[in-house]
């Protein structure tokens, strides 16, 4: 079992004439928590979405847990290893919280109803809302919906969790409940790649912080060094804008 779980080499992604990623190299080790920050349009979400192939690269390659993301059958294998949590939650509105968590377990992992429901209830307890098992997404607050979404991804027992601005669509008082779940997950040793501007979370959980701008990685550093001694002008400028 090699130590590098995600290896990205020379990643280039174009949307029409716009280059969202312009040659990104990144390696994530097992159990590491990497936080990606950067201004909007810097390519950080695109990079995340490329890791489980919601977007495909135009150049370069991504290897996840030793599996190159090139052939179609590999993509499904990788997706089973990689959970993703979206900014807009993307819960299935026609299913209850419990059904949201059991659906993929039953369809993809072929688990029985009893087993998948048992796992779902455990995860709902873990994210702190077992009493909402039979509620529909529309009946839940944003923070509760996002926690169900995290539980839904965890039910597939992924080796990596990707978070795409998980708290950006939340009201301020709900951000903490989601971050607490993510912190607990980080403490358990989950490999996490998080696109977020929650500096409190970055300080508490991140092993590494990556600053991206205009499709490239500008700076790669630790939380302490980022706040005390940012190397690049662009990083300083960005930090001065987000740390009011």
């Amino acid at each position: 079992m090699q130590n590098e779980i995600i290896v990205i080499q020379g990643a280039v992604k174009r949307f029409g004439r716009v280059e969202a990623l312009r040659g990104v190299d990144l390696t994530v080790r097992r159990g590491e928590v990497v936080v990606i920050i950067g201004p909007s349009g810097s390519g950080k979400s695109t990079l995340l979405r490329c890791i489980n192939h919601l977007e495909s690269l135009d150049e370069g390659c991504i290897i996840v847990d030793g599996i190159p993301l090139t052939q179609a059958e590999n993509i499904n294998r990788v997706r089973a290893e990689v959970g993703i949590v979206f900014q807009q939650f993307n819960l299935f509105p026609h299913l209850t919280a419990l059904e949201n968590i059991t659906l993929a377990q039953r369809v993809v992992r072929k688990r029985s109803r009893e087993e998948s429901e048992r796992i779902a209830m455990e995860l709902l307890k873990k994210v702190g809302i077992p009493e909402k098992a039979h509620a529909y997404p529309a009946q839940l607050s944003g923070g509760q919906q996002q926690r169900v979404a995290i539980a839904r991804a965890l039910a597939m027992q992924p080796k990596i969790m990707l978070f795409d601005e998980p708290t950006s669509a939340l009201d301020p008082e709900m951000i903490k409940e989601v971050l607490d779940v993510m912190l607990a997950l980080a403490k358990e040793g989950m490999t996490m790649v998080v696109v977020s501007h929650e500096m409190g979370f970055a300080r508490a959980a991140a092993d590494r912080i990556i600053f991206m701008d205009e499709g490239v990685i500008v700076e790669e550093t630790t939380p302490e060094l980022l706040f005390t001694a940012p190397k690049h002008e662009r990083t300083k400028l960005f930090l001065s804008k987000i740390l009011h």
Partner: protein
Amino acid sequence: MPDVERLERTLEAKAATLPKERERFDTWWFLVLAVVGVVSLLVFVKPDPFLRIVLFLRDGIGVTVRITVISFAFILVVGLIGGLGRLAKNWLIHGIASLYVEIIRGIPLLVQLLFLYFAFPQVLDGVGAWLIKLSPSLHGAGQWLVDVKPDPFVMAVAGLTICYGAYMSEIYRAGIQSISKGQMEAARSLGMSYFQAMRYVILPQAVRVILPPVGNEFVALLKDSSLVSVVAVSDMTRRGREFMSSSFMSLETWTMVALLYLVMTLFASRVVAYIERKTAFAK
């Protein structure tokens, strides 16, 4: 589950204190009462000719209902395939589906039915003759194509299915497109295949969106099924024409036919509204 039972009882108690929707005397009830009232009045006050007309039309009513329901079942399937085809990334599948929809939508249903019943058998004859000439081993198949006689009912169902399947494809396509892209992404990111995501995530939501237009299509199909009377199917309209030509009572016959269609369409649209209410989920 006692919890659910208790909840249901509370809801029932609550509902009892509120005016029930089905007790409301809305436009639909007024229309239905009026139409049914007029029909019964005519039948009871003037059994000759109105009761005679109803009795004469009776088997035609059955044919109309049967042809509509059977066609509609096929239309739902063809529409789904066509709709998915229109959304396919594969250019060939997309092209075939688009061609089908664009061609069929541009030809009147009546002309399509006439073509299927009168012109298509000639095509089969030609193909059969060509097969026989081509090779003796294909003689059986060729002869079958030459001999086969178009069954009016089958041709009518085929015609309605082909035509309405094209309209339904567009409804399915729009319904699937109305579901946010994030739903497909979430399903795929959990490891589901495209078809699993469609089956368990997208279609259950899309169906609720398209229910009103699908219901409209059903009512429209019920009415358009009257066109099959030109291809030797004894539906209600054809029976009406038969009665008229033997009795020469145009006004009475077509009044009764129109009223009976109206009763059927009013009930159909109510059934659709009921299904819509039943399948709605909290948004």
